[in-house]
């Protein structure tokens, strides 16, 4: 297939500058949205390009939707997925060399059991996820560059810890568009504001419409919602008239402004907001879920209620055609008191994640939904503060399920203590390349020309981990 065979990379976006697209043509894509009132302006263009219309990938995709279960804070691979009997055997021994000299090894206090036909080891902290062992590909040789939260989080999301770059959700949306124009194409449920903040779902130099829409989630019983999602005063038709006026004002600003990107982003946001009012409440309202679903996701139990709601929303969004859905669980930074904190953190996510996998499978969605699990890095085999673990960027575990990856498969390994990836090493760039590949995108061809050069999610790095492809 040549680059021009597939829709998006041919001549629309890469050869036409974004600004030409946005502004030079008097009815840029922002205008499309309110075609009703803008018809007079747009008369010269029968079908203005919609940047979020579904686009053909580079080759046949294995997945069309991504659900990324993002664990913020660096969960300990050693206590969940990476079983290290030698570490347990050497528990309490002091390291005699290296920077961490004097630190004492700490075997996982949690019991591991082989699960499924594949016999992959899962700790007792994640029994429910373990029951899906045969659907999962474990990436046990993950590594990244920086053992600091903000940088590692930003790198996990954008590929770069140093520069402001588009997030992988934005790249996905740019590459594939989205199938439901009434919902954002990229949603992030319960993102934390720290550790990289909005960069984690930002669009950087990609068009603003590719940015993620955050759905804040609170603890307790308040239903998750986007603030101000329901109309305060006007009927739907009256609000449409009002938005038409707003868009006329925006159109007028677009003619004069030096910031067509910003103005177009605003234009787009009103149209999406208007449609979201009708579609989003049903997706977010998990109160009406039936008893089986409530049980499946643990909605009625305190420890799992929050993340369960997030996972259920994610499934509904996937079902509605949202392209990229991120779900965040925070609080994995266990420098101390690891035994209790890991138990709490894992309890919060184990059942909801397992429920999500079950639900996706039962609905026949797992085949083309790629579920990603992972945090920004792992943790050290040696103890910190007696009963804690420090950051470890040199070796950790992530996993994938569904969407074209092997089930019951383990790839890569850390050393005997789980300190460093030694085999089947997968860098974050490789992870990105593989995700794009599963979506039918060649990470070397998914480029965007900015400031005179072509940018990629993987910069000049990245190798697709072919061994894990089903």
């Amino acid at each position, binding site marked *: 297939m040549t680059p021009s065979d597939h829709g998006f990379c041919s001549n629309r976006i890469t050869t036409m500058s974004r600004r030409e697209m946005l502004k030079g043509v008097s009815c840029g894509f922002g205008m499309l949205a309110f075609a009703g009132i803008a018809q007079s302006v747009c008369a010269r263009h029968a079908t203005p390009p919609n940047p979020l219309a579904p686009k053909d990938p580079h080759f046949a995709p294995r997945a069309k939707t991504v659900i990324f279960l993002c664990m913020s804070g660096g969960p300990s691979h050693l206590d969940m997925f990476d079983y290290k009997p030698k570490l347990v055997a050497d528990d309490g021994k002091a*390291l005699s060399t290296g920077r*961490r000299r004097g630190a004492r090894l700490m075997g996982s206090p949690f019991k591991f059991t082989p699960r499924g036909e594949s016999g992959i080891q899962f700790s007792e902290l994640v029994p429910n996820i373990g029951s899906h062992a045969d659907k999962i590909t474990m990436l046990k040789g993950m590594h990244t560059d920086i053992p*600091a939260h903000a940088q590692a989080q930003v790198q996990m999301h954008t590929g770069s810890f140093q520069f402001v770059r588009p997030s992988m959700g934005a790249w996905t949306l740019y590459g594939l568009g989205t199938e439901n124009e009434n919902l954002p194409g990229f949603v992030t449920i319960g993102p934390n504001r720290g550790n990289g903040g909005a960069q984690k779902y930002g669009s950087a130099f990609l068009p603003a419409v590719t940015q993620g829409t955050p759905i804040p989630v609170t603890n307790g019983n308040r239903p998750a919602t986007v603030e101000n999602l329901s109309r*305060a005063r006007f009927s739907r038709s009256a609000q449409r008239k009002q938005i*038409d006026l707003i868009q006329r004002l925006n159109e*007028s600003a677009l003619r004069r402004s*030096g*910031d067509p990107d*910003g103005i177009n982003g605003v234009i787009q946001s009103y149209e999406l907001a208007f449609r979201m009012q009708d579609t989003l409440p049903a997706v977010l309202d998990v109160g009406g879920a039936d008893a089986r679903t409530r049980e499946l996701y643990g909605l009625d139990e305190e420890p799992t209620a929050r993340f369960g709601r997030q996972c259920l929303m994610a499934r509904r969004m996937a079902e509605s055609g949202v392209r990229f859905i991120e779900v965040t669980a925070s609080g994995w930074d266990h420098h101390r008191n690891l035994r209790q904190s890991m138990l709490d953190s894992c309890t919060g996510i184990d059942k909801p994640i397992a429920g999500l996998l079950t639900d996706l499978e039962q609905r026949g969605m797992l085949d083309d939904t790629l579920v990603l699990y992972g945090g920004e890095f792992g943790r050290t085999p040696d103890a910190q503060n007696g009963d804690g673990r420090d950051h470890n960027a040199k070796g950790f575990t992530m996993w994938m399920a569904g969407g074209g990856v092997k089930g019951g498969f383990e790839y890569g390994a850390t050393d005997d203590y789980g300190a460093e990836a030694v085999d089947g090493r997968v860098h974050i760039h490789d992870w990105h390349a593989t995700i794009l590949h599963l979506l039918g995108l060649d990470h070397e061809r998914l480029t965007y020309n900015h*400031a005179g050069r072509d940018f990629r999610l993987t910069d000049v790095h990245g190798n697709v981990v072919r061994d894990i492809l089903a």
Partner: protein
Amino acid sequence: MPDVTPSIPDRGPNRVPLVARLPAVAFVLGLAASLHGQSIGGLSAPDLQFFESKVRPLLIKHCYQCHASEGGRIRGGLVLDSREGWMLGGISGPAVVPGDPDSSLLIEAVRGEDPDFQMPPNRKLGEAEVAIFEEWVRRGAPDPRIPDPDASNATPVPGGGVPKEAGEDHWAFAPVRSPDPPRVEDPRWCTNEIDAFILAGLEADGLKPAARASKTALIRRLSFDLRGHQPSPEEVEDFLADRSDQAWSALVDRFLASPAFGERWGRHWLDVARFAESSGKEQDVPYPHAWRYRDWVIRAINEDLPYDQFLRMQLAGDLLGGRTREEVGSNLVATGYLAVGPKSHRERQRRQFELDVADEQIDTITQGMLGLTVSCARCHDHKYDPVSQQDYYQLAGIMMSSETLFGGYGTRSGMQSDLIDLARSDSIGGGLSIPAGLYARLLDQHDGLGSQISELESRRASGDVTESEYRQRMRTLRQRQAPVEEVLARFDEGGAPTSLNKVAMGIRDDVAPADARLLIRGELDNPAETVPRGVPPIADLRDPILIEEGSGRLELANWIASEGNPLTARVMSNRIWLHLFGSGIVATTENFGLEGAPPSHPALLDHLATRFLAHDWSVKNLVREIVHSSAYRMATDEHPAGLRVDPDNARYWRMSPYRLEGEAIRDAILYAAGTIELGAPGGSRVSWLPGRVPNDEYLVEAMLSSDSRSIYLPQMRTLSAVILETFDGPESSFVTGDRDETNVPSQALLMLNSDWVTRQADEMASMLLSLDVDDRRRQEIAFLRTLGRPPTSLERSAIRRFFADFGALLDDGEAIDDQRGQQARDRVRRRNQRRRGLAEAPETPLERHGGTARDQARLIAWSALCQSIFASAEFRYLD
């Protein structure tokens, strides 16, 4: 044989120089085992002789200069003057694998096959010398240089950080120089020297600066940039009419003198000072007196307190004294900077808590004032900057020799402290009076809990409850009562604040200042040697400034706030530039370290810093100079050459448009609606907050009903006003120099659907309709108050069409879906306000307006127009 080559991420063939390699976590246990197996003292005579006659001379001759612990300069963290030194290795890991020359980094280095990894760096060793090293390693690296085990009982600390020399050539650590403005081809464009630096860069790239912006655009830009809100229609009119040469400078001076300047620029500093009125973390304990620091910042900026003084007071105001009681009080309040950070009040170990507080302070100070991330060195040497763990603990010694005063009432089981007593400073206000209804409600709560307590006492006396049950219930009751009691004590029965409310957060020196011990991996129970407290040798400082007496905060403050400090003036000049141009000359505003972004215009940055220093650190003066430049007054117009060569506008060929912050958007709405309450409220509603877990609804209500400027709204770490959060407000637990700028549908929803925006639109419509003018003029006024310009004819026709369509829907009763709903919400809101003891909101504009259905419809239509303008892109983007 174990492989001890440091692993290098597979990033192609590039070899990284030895000192720059990422430190290998050396889990080389095979090696460790083989070393343990070696007979330590028992070197054979030939081995000993070989070492002494051949190896030691070579080491002294070629290696000790950079790799000896006595030498002072240890490169790459590697010392070769002891056996332990090479065993431990440098930042690349152990230097020698006994018995295996090919796996030994030392051998690899002296062989010099890889120029980037060759040692000694400048001259390759002869083959004979290399052969000696190889032979030595092959023999198992016999080495008699074993330290006397009794020489020191302190645990030696693994080194391995970035050597100090790595910073020697770093631009940001070099002194600020005063560069001559470059020659430019077309000097006519230049208003002041700043322009020469900009234009020279443009000319080099074959670019031309954009034309001057229109006067309408300029006054709007300047007003938002300096005051944080739009100009009034009268101000616009006057400025347009003033055709004198002084029009611009007169406008600049007027805006600089406005109290709104401090509210705008104070907010910029509060971002950097990670200001909030609660602890954040698990409990979010309210800080009822944090507002005093906020108000101090605003006042200091309005008074143009020299920036060095500004910093000195925040770090050590308690040690500066003052001529009057008021001055002393004000200096004390300034140290609130160190106390308002996020804290984990639930931490049980006092020492751990203090370490965490000190760490948070070091992080805030170094990122905010110096553009350095020193806190990275808490658990290990900094991985990218020449900041060692010793450096960190020198600073920690200073902070730990001070007592942070943060209050923390209502946390009977958690960490608490004293506060600063301001009762003697007469002119310092006591804060907001508590509303009578709220006071009464608190009193009720208190008494209710009191009677439950006495009931419990009597039940205990009569033996109705078991002792353990009694203790448990009593603890719960007292924990609930304590915070209520604390609030009540701060107000008298009339609701006025008592002297107990005249307190502030801040810091004071410990009675017995002491040095801190370095903590291995940052662990409390893993102390190593004691590190003398002082200003560590970071940035350009070669030798630490050691502290003889007191905490050392004053010495730290004086070092930071000195003209000679290469970072302080540059970091602040860069922040000022950022807030006027939308992007910093150094993009990483909090990181001027080795991994930070290099400056796009280094000479300009130094020019700004020089001017800043030359004018006695005057922020207002530097702002004035920048806004007088032609560069600042460029239009935002795009031109093809600029877009092609520099689409990010890194060279400043035009002014970059930017989206206003949440504060400016909210304040602009209040200004346009005419509802703004100017000036400082003189306190914070947070100071009425009973209970350690703030009641969300109460605070949300407090924010919605406030018409103060946004900087005065309650700002809890877990809760701030929705509009501020939606428009990318800062995460107040971190230093924020440059805010995010997103464009998401939740912002559109807020503008369309929030009751608050609707109410402001109603207020503005009501005001417009009360004017004795025709509708055409009314529209013009609506535009002038919001966008600073009259509507265009296209916009007028759009409005005409809107009124026609919308009016038809109104007439048919099809426009209002939810008016009853909204009225019901208003009623509920009022009932809640009554219940919570807050002053009731006045009548809504619709209620006030009254009149016939037709009058109401007219108000609603005009309100919809005002709201549409608030919602428009132009309202929130600054050209």
